[in-house]
């Protein structure tokens, strides 16, 4: 009697999958693009006088090389990572259907579980190589074009180059969590739809739907319960203290999605019939069986967040906007003072306060909108009078805002400030800020 053949080890299956993936010209092209294009983009944009100020940290691209990788991170979260996960994870199972190689693979490996694990690990490895490429390349482009200089955070405080580098690295690492979630959705789509293009498109479609959802005025609990929020919540790393609550929730939700979607993909894979060469997916019932648990996961996450935080409204309240603006103004005023070679004034000495209204008396003073108007007041040592300046705020649903100086022009008007790195716009003229959506505790 001959013993049944032993299955191939996961390590060998993993190498086999990597060989197949890297033999595809589109994967090679993606790797090349992810390791080269960001550097060229960041270097080119950083040297321009017109900067992408609509993108977070875009206005600082010619001031520090650490702004470039963050601009790239914002772009990656919205466009690049959903597409990359689609091409890699969304195709890793479907490609065997397209090529008609399932039976060959099964006879060679002799284990469904090991094939699944090898494929999941190989696609994950390729995605990590691509993400690492974007991070390293954009950072290298920024450093080479502009240099490693301090970065202005989202509350106006300055991060030393080493701290900026650490936070940039951490931000990219945090974004791996929602990337894993999308990759798992890609695996699920690839298993569920077989050779159908829907499987390939699923991560991109899900990411697009979630990005659209983030633009709607949804309650905070729902916003945070979607894995796409982790593509935004890294912003909280660039305030002092860091806004870790939304960041950790976003990562937790994303990892929950990654585990659930991978488990569903695995179960669908095990139940698949590989004896039919015309397989085109397990049908509507199985696809529903894949979608329902994920919808349930959103419901559970919403309930947990709503109960534990509690965060049922937009999360953008008058007091949080005022606190955020006052903090950012104080830090940036100090920066402006230094750039103008005036005596240093600490944030404590300034005792900045902000008074904000929204849309006059017709609407509630909360929520996103471009109709926020704030008056900032501050004091200077030895001066009796209180300084004041006006800002118009455009706050988006995710809590990010752009503060636009509305006078007096000597304080927050547009003028160039001479810095050791060259002329820069007045830091108090326009700046980015961030309102933490979760309830915050008063600072001591």
């Amino acid at each position, binding site marked *: 009697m001959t013993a049944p*053949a032993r299955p191939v080890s996961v390590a060998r299956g993993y190498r086999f999958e990597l060989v197949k993936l890297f033999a595809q010209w589109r994967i090679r092209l993606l790797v090349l693009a992810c390791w080269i294009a960001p550097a060229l983009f960041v270097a080119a944009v950083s040297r321009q006088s017109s900067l992408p100020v609509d993108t977070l940290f875009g206005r600082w691209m010619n001031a520090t090389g650490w702004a470039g990788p963050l601009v790239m991170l914002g772009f990656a979260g919205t466009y690049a990572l959903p597409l990359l996960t689609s091409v890699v994870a969304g195709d890793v199972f479907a490609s065997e259907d397209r090529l008609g190689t399932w039976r060959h693979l099964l006879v060679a490996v002799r284990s469904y579980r090991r094939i699944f694990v090898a494929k999941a690990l190989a696609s994950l490895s390729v995605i990590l190589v691509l993400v690492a490429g974007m991070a390293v390349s954009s950072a290298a482009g920024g450093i080479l074009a502009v240099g490693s200089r301090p970065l202005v955070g989202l509350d106006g405080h300055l991060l030393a180059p080493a701290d900026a580098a650490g936070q940039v690295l951490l931000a990219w690492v945090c974004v791996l969590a929602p990337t894993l979630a999308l990759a798992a959705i890609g695996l699920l789509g690839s298993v569920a739809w077989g050779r159908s293009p829907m499987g390939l498109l699923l991560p991109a479609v899900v990411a697009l739907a979630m990005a659209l959802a983030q633009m709607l005025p949804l309650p905070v609990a729902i916003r945070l319960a979607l894995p796409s929020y982790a593509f935004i919540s890294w912003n909280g790393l660039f305030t002092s203290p860091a806004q870790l609550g939304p960041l950790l929730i976003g990562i937790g939700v994303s990892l929950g999605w990654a585990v659930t979607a991978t488990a569903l993909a695995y179960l669908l894979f095990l139940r698949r019939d590989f004896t039919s060469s015309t397989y085109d997916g397990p049908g509507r019932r199985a696809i529903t069986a894949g979608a329902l648990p994920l919808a349930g996961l959103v419901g559970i996450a919403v309930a947990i967040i709503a109960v534990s935080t509690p965060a049922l409204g937009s999360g953008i309240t008058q007091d949080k906007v005022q606190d955020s603006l006052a903090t950012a103004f104080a830090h940036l005023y100090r920066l402006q003072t230094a750039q103008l070679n005036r005596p240093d004034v600490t944030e404590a000495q300034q005792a900045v306060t902000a008074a904000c209204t929204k849309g006059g008396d017709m609407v509630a003073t909360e929520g996103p909108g471009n109709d926020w108007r704030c008056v900032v007041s501050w004091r200077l040592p030895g001066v009796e009078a209180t300084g004041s300046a006006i800002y118009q705020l455009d706050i988006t649903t995710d809590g990010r805002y752009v503060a636009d100086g509305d006078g007096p022009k000597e304080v927050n008007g547009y003028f160039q400030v001479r810095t050791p790195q060259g002329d820069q716009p007045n830091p108090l003229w326009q700046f980015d800020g961030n309102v933490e959506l979760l309830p915050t505790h008063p600072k001591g």
Partner: protein
Amino acid sequence: MDTPPAVRARGITRCFGDVVALDCLDLDVATGQIHGLVGPNGAGKTTLLGLLLGLAVADDGSLEILGTPVGRALAAPDGVAGFVDGPGLYPSLTARQNLAALVALRGRGARTAGIDDVLDEVGLTDVADDRVRGFSLGMRQRLGLAAALLARPRLLVLDEPANGLDPAGKKHVHGVLTRLATQGTTVVLSSHRMDDLEALCSEVTILATGRVVFSGPLSKLSTESRELDYRLRTSDPEAARLVALDTPKLRVVEGSEVLVVRAPVPALDELVVRLVRADIAVREFAPVVSPLEAAFLALTDQQETGR
């Protein structure tokens, strides 16, 4: 102690939903034999080959491969190789890379695995470093065979291995299979090409609607089958026609210069004897369709009609 058969199936049933792909099938394939599987589309050939490769497991019945009972999917014993529904090849890899990846998967060194030897054996040495994307169907079939040979199989399962092969390629592949059989490897192959099966196989199994309608040597098939149509070309067509009309149990179906006669095998033998006695030179005497094909058509027609 007797050598167990390479394949021993008893009462194998395999269903896909309401469709019965294999219906209480029995099959024995002796070691070192080239065994052909024939049947119309949907007869269950691919399902049976899939069971032999371990891709699926029967819903009912018992299956022993190389003396080992197979009770679950992907549990075929070591020494079973082959392909169903075409060879599984990766078009972005070269022929050599395809084989090397397979060898690495099995944990053997590329040098010791004999990649060059099998490429040479199937006649693909010249294109070993070309990407499979540009290969013709026949070249892919040969590379698929090479991939199976790398496993040094004791049971080789092939689905339509002659698909897309030119005459030279077919001869090459037939040579490889015949050599393997003489070395003790059992080959089970399916084909719609009756001439291929007749040239290669010592035994055939004819399937229809999931059931075995015939299994045994080709010679037995000829005697079991009904009347055969034979084409007859002679030196004197008119005299030959008269002889044929005079031969018992034989009918002249058509013809003037070339006659087509219909009769069982003994009557055909008698016709040849009578033509020789009448000093009529026989220049061609061949079946209009091969005996296997005739049997196939007759048996599968019976089966379909019986349903």
